[in-house]
């Protein structure tokens, strides 16, 4: 496992994290996951639906549903001011101080994650008031500058979410999340619901903001094309475990694990040279056994 320990203490470290349903503590949905996110870098978590990538992201800020629990592991967060903290040990009140202020999250569906009865300006300003106590004209000015930063005219602060397009709504979500200048941004498939052209714009925006504000970013996706565009480090998840991790060049150009290879092989390429291939699970231990027995059966039959 290629973890990067060259800096004194990274922004976020997940150590041997495991998540299971409360009713079935032995059935691990996330199994022994370790990840490192550095300041100013993007770590991508790639995997299919159900591989546990969203659960991993949710567990960082203690947002797991009531039916699930962390069975093991630490979430070490170092914001550079108050030293290293284990977020799993914090109570709800202390977690709330971190959520939105130091760690922010962007969700997949910009349509469902905005409140339809509040103006976008109000929703962007909410965390500023809560965490930093910004009010009045100062708040208005800050909201205007945030909107400009994500490429929406400041005059639209009084619009409601339904008056914006999907891409604009995702920009609003981004403005909300960076309002308090968090140290870590968690983006859970932020462009999956968007058009390709809009997706390219949003990826560019996120990358610029990350550099300008020197944030660390945890980016969850199932699309290797997106990974190639945005990642510094990549972790590949399969059935709740990280099967491979390393720098983007390592994982994309020299994938070691058969699952990574299989997943990369089924991404359609832009030139159409590569034949389409369904995902290949022949490498799995249970399938290996089946292959062996069928080979033996053939032998005995012959």
């Amino acid at each position, binding site marked *: 496992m290629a973890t990067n320990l060259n800096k004194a203490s990274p922004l976020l470290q997940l150590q041997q994290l495991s998540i299971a349903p409360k009713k079935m503590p032995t059935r691990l949905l996330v199994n022994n996951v370790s990840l490192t996110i550095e300041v100013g870098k993007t770590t991508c978590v790639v995997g*299919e*639906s159900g591989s546990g990538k969203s659960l991993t992201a949710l567990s960082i800020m203690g947002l797991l549903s009531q039916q699930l629990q962390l069975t093991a592991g630490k979430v070490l967060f170092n914001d550079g001011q108050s030293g290293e903290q284990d977020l799993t040990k914090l109570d709800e009140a202390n977690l709330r101080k971190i959520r939105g202020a130091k760690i922010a999250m962007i969700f997949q569906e910009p349509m469902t994650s905005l409140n339809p009865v509040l103006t976008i300006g109000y929703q962007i300003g909410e965390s500023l008031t809560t965490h930093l106590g910004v009010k009045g004209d100062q708040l208005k000015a800050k909201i205007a500058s945030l909107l400009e930063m994500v490429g929406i005219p400041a005059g639209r602060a009084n619009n409601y979410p339904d008056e914006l*397009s*999907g891409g604009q709504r995702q920009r609003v979500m981004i403005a909300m999340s960076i309002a308090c200048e968090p140290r870590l941004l968690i983006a859970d498939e932020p462009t999956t619901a968007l*058009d*390709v*052209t*809009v*997706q*390219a714009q949003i*990826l560019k925006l996120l990358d610029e903001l990350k550099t300008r504000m020197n944030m660390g970013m945890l980016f969850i996706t*199932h*699309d*290797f*094309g*997106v*990974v*190639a*565009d945005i990642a510094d480090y990549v972790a590949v998840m399969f059935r709740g475990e990280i099967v491979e991790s390393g720098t983007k060049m390592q994982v*994309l*150009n*020299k*994938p070691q694990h058969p699952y*990574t*290879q*299989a*997943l*990369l*092989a*089924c*991404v*359609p*390429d*832009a*030139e*159409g*040279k*590569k*034949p*389409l*291939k*369904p*995902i290949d699970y022949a490498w799995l231990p249970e399938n290996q056994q089946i292959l062996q027995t069928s080979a033996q059966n053939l032998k005995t039959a012959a």
Partner: protein
Amino acid sequence: MTTPILQANNLVKTYTQRSGKFGFGTSLVKALDDVSISLTEGKTLAVVGESGSGKSTLARCLLQLQPLDSGEVLFAGQDLAKLDGAALRVVRKNLQMVFQDPFASLNPRMRVGEIVGEGLLIHGLGSGAEQQRKVIAMLNRVGLTEADMQKYPHEFSGGQRQRVGIARALVLQPKVVVCDEPVSALDVSIQAQILLLLKELQAEMALSYLFISHDLRVVRHIADDIVVMHQGKIVEYGAVVDIYQQPQHEYTRNLLAAMPGKYMALVGN
């Protein structure tokens, strides 16, 4: 000489949109603005463009699921826009659709067997036993089993549901299938399976596809010809190879430039 199986000439469709204060004013949006396409038998024509470019409206208007303002849709020499309800229902047997969202397009209260068999029932094709046999054969063909007939849609994964959607469309042995973003809601790993299935079925059943997508990587693999739409107009129309190599229109170049992972090294093969 290749004959077009489905041809659309000068389609126009306008929507009225409420605007102004309290939505008292109205403004017109041209969803289709003088659109003409032709689908060759046994080929795949892809329609690409961003949301709001009119690609789904085009699909719906072709199948007469929405009335046109003007223009004609020719299927096997008949103008679909002029047919009445009963005549249209007969023709529709040959025109089927696979929808984008496998979670929303299957009735949650019907069993998969009923969903797939409904078309046969409506068109009164064969006896009950024959219909049953056809449904089973179709389910097997798309990779599901006979036991799946008794299950409800919620018991399946996204990829399996899309297989049900495909079985439902193909059980009537249509000539033309309109696929409206059939893989955009699926994982990359499942995407390839469904695309390959669609390709195989096309070869077996001599289907012609109208394939709507915004993912140019997918289109590159499945389409023969491609139509690029922007704000209700066709901005470019031609063979896939030509358009990918020498896009003429500014908008097409933008779309191609927005493809994620263009510079990704080819690996894993």
